[in-house]
């Protein structure tokens, strides 16, 4: 019988997305809940009956009762799937109340992996877990994966934490050695914590979150269908796409056209969060046009934001002519333009002047020539 399972992590159920408007926030939360069913479906389609959740299934140590209950019920509903849930740093063993409730209310097909003792999770396969004891345990918990297992059994490691410290200096305590799989003789090491999919070694993977939760990882969210000895397969499970669209433009470009070409089909925009980051330089007119077009297409998306701070305004005399050819309006425009390009001023002051110039252009256009 072929050993096969789904490797996922970082569902972060209950994540609030408070910085986003109410409507998309609720949709995002619901999409995260829906990832349970999509993982189960991915397992079935891949011929697996087991899903390993490598930590951070819940976003908080004490998720709201409905968040927890809905998750447990959703897993219970997938009765042909066995869930192995490892505590991560967000839902570590320090969250004793969470794990107490899971133990009390969890379905039979859910196994909370709260101790580092090896368990036979599938016939012929031992799971060597490294549950997070604290949010910051300060030591390499995967050392427990050195534990012996019966001869002939496959050794599958399940851990949560950073292989590379993405936020601090190297050598920080608690970092999982990248060659943990080799050190501990693992056939596969399923890791969680990194929300993007990442292969660390021949048999070491971060599955990434099954549902994206930010713009950090420019990839389609999904899970991994693992069969040790065979190639790991990526299974897409994400509902929402978080996209950062970088638009680098220069005078002479048609930013509106470029943007239109880069955007997805309008029918695909509802489940997409798009952040437009424009860089480069544009004359006032094109900048205003881009700004207006961005405002026009924004409602197509589940969420849309455009950041033009990185877009410098290149203003030539002809551009200022669009405000006025002479007189006080022209003088004001020239003064603002001068300030916007004055390196002796702070960047904040330059931004204010640049924004003031953009407003002047817009207001001047409203009043015609």
């Amino acid at each position, binding site marked *: 019988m072929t050993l096969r399972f789904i490797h996922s992590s970082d569902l972060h159920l*209950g*994540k*609030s*997305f*408070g*910085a*986003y408007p109410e409507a998309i926030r609720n949709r995002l939360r619901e999409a995260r809940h829906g990832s349970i069913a999509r993982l189960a479906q991915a397992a079935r389609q891949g011929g697996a009956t087991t899903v390993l959740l490598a930590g951070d299934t819940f*976003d*908080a*140590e*004490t*998720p*709201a*009762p*409905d*968040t927890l209950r809905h998750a447990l019920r959703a897993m219970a509903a997938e009765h042909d799937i066995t869930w192995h849930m490892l505590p991560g740093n967000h839902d570590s063993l*320090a*969250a*004793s*109340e*969470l794990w107490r*409730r899971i133990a009390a209310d969890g379905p039979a097909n859910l196994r909370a992996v709260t101790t580092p003792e090896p368990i036979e999770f599938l016939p012929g396969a031992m799971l060597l877990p490294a549950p997070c004891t604290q949010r910051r345990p300060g030591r390499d918990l995967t050392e427990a994966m050195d534990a012996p297992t019966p001869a002939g059994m496959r050794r599958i490691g399940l851990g949560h934490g950073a292989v590379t410290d993405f936020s601090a200096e190297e050598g920080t305590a608690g970092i999982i050695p990248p060659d943990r799989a080799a050190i501990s003789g693992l056939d596969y090491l399923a890791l969680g914590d990194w929300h993007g999919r990442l292969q660390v070694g021949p048999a070491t993977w971060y599955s990434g979150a099954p549902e994206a939760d930010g713009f950090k990882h420019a990839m389609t969210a999904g899970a991994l269908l693992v069969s040790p000895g065979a190639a790991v397969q990526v299974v897409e499970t994400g509902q929402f796409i978080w996209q950062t669209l970088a638009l680098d433009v220069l005078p002479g470009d048609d930013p509106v056209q470029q943007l239109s070409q880069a955007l997805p089909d309008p029918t695909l925009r509802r489940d997409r969060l798009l952040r437009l980051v424009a860089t480069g330089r544009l004359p006032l007119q094109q900048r205003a046009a881009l700004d207006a077009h961005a405002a026009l297409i924004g409602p197509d998306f589940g969420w849309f934001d455009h950041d033009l701070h990185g877009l410098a305004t290149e203003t030539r005399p002809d551009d200022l002519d669009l405000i*006025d*050819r*002479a*007189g*006080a*309006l*022209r*003088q*004001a425009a020239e*003064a*603002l333009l001068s300030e916007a390009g004055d390196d002796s001023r702070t960047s904040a002051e330059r*931004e*204010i*002047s640049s*924004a*003031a*110039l*953009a*407003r*002047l252009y817009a*207001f*001047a256009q*409203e*009043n*015609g*020539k």
Partner: protein
Amino acid sequence: MKIRAIELTNIRRFAGRSARIEGIGDGITVLSEPNEFGKSTFFDALHALFFERHRGTRQTVKALQPHAGGAPEAAIEIDLPQGSYRIEKRWLSRPTARVLDGNGRIVAQDDEAEAWIDRLLGDGLAGPSGLLWVRQGLLGLEPEGTNANDKNERERGLGARRDLLSSVAGEIELMTGGRRLDAVLARVAEELGRLATTTLKPKAGAEWARAVDEAATLRDQEADLAGKAAGLSGDLARRTEVLRQLKQLDDPETERLRNDALTQAREAQRAALAHAEKLAEARQKLRLAELTVQATQTGIGQLEQLSDRLGRAEAELSQARDRLAKAETGAEEAAAADRLAADALGAASGQAQAIRARLDAAQRALLGRAARERATQLRKTLERAEELQRKRDQDRAQRELTAVNSASVTRAESARETRDRIAAQLEAQSVSVAIRYDGALRISADGEDIPEGSLRLSSARSFLLPGIGTMRVDPGAGAAEGLAEALTRANAELTARLAECGAATVAEARQRLAETQRLDQAMQASAALLAELAPQGLDTLRQELARAEAGAGRAEEPVEDPAGLEAALAAALAAEAEARAQSGAVHARAVTASEGRAVARSTAQVAQAAAEAARIDAGDLGQLARRLHGLRADLVLQTGLQTEAVALCQTLEAAAPDLETVQARLARAESVVTQAQQGRERLRGEYATLNGSIGALAEQGIEERLDEVRGKLTAAEARAARYAAEVQALSRLRSALEDARRKARDAYFAPVLRELEPLLSVLHPGAAMQIDDQSLLPVALTRNGQQESLDILSGGTREQIAILTRLAFARLYAHAGQSVPVILDDALVHSDDDRIEAMFTALHRVAKDQQIIVLTCRQRAFAALGGTRATAVISAI
């Protein structure tokens, strides 16, 4: 353009005539003529020539027509760069307009002539007249009336100024942005007003303020939820720790170790206590041995002392007996001498005592006599005092009975005088009726017969005259009735006052008063005498008498002379003293001898008793020696036992455990067990409490809410920051626009100000003008750092500024290649002498390259202006 001549025909007062001004120069030309000459007619005709079409029939044209009617005509001869020209216009009747060149050839006629004039005036400029002409009495910079002419004049002037400034400085719309800038500024204000207050603070209810408020609210919520989340996290950590501690306490191996430690501590305590008992027993035996040795040693010492004491007692007894025999002999001899001396003393004392008794009797007799004399004296004084006392009491009683004072008597006398005065008045008003009867009949009144005699009537009274009738006698109506009533009241008053005095009459009252005064004096005299006789009262006097009578005793006369007895007594006493001294010395010696004998007897008895006691205590001397030997043998044995006991104690003490340490160890072991039990109970209680609080907070989904609030807070703060940036941008745009417009205005008006300010400084050194960008005219004057609106300046100053402004604009025209004359019609009427001189200077400053035509009726005042003098020639048509 320079005007050289003006000619009017059939205009107003020049009906049927022509009037021509000639000799107009390049600089200042003055036409000085008296009032009613028609200077303003020239001015108006010239104005019409330039600005009224020849076919025009407006009032301004009709106003040129003389009363006699006819067509008014005006002509002007001018020099232009291209040559000399004559312009003619005729209005109302056969109107025509013509322009002729210097050779008299018609250059243009009628409408073409009008177009030629327009080009002359305009040529890009709308016309200088409204700008440069100063009408008679004009104070302001432009006509202020509301009629059509004034409006047209203002519009024309504004157009001219706008054209002029545009030609020298550019279009004002272009310079200041005009309506577009206004619209942009309005949009900026609108956007700012939508978000912020005038001080650029978030506007209540607007988006920015809502974002700021929302952020503040979320910040509070975030703090609250963060606190709860931290509490929950702390509770979770604590519960984990509690569970760990409970697990540790409940560990069987740990508990067994605790119990074993307790058992061992208790066993050690029992062993230590048993050892301590053994040690105490050994110490008791040692003490007993020590006491036994000590008792034996004491017995030996006592027996040795007893033997010594017996020897000493026998020797002392022998000595005491010898001293007693000697004392007995001396005492008997001293007693015999003492008896003899006592007898001699008794005899001397008896003699002295007898003499003293006789002297006492003589002295008592003398004292009794003096006491009797004192008693007699006191008795007499007491009798006198008691007599005075009785008399004073009687006087006091009498005084109380006759009590009256001088005021009461005075009131009674006053009442009597009143009564007597009224009675006298009544008597004076009464009539006297004399009655004498001749027969039996009697006159009666009030039922009673009136006896003969005189009868006085003080009031009316009726008499019955038998057989005759009634006679009424009336002393006088009214007066007596009042007096009678007054008399009654006076009598009543007198009676009342006498009653106060306790008298029937005033004399009696006076007598009672005299008696009262006499009694007062008598009582005072008695009191003074009593005080003299018995200053401390009668009782004291009586007590002194009693004491004197008691001391008098019975009457005895002295039998012997006390003085002789006293001398005899002194001799007897001296003899007695000598006998007493001798007896005392002898007696002292007898007593000493007796005491020595008693001491010797006592000492002998004590020595006897001690010897007998020692004998008794010692008993048989042989037995005493045996007893002493036995005790010394016992002491050797007992000392050996004591040494053994000491060794045992030392051995036990060396091996004894520290009982305090053993007990401390037991206490610690018991404490550990107890603490484990208590800790288990406490931790279980805390665990239950933590479960409750964790469960309650976990039910609220604190962390999810906190995460949500933090997200919202981030969004709200970002939104508020965006609005703040927007407000900053708009504010910056507004200031940039205002700054640019201010600079544009300054640049726009710079040419005017450049021309105006030198002229202005002639009148107001250092002054500056502000020009309105709507009217393009000065609106305020700044002098000495203070800005003043033209509206509040004096008429003279306003007039001067109006002229200077025209001069400045005229120079601008000149700079623009359009030299036009300035025409002043009776101007400077409001200026004082100093200012007018200054204005003349200003005019000359401009006149260097500017034609100025001055029409004035003030010949003397304008004589100082100088310039060319023009003349007007009037001729018939």
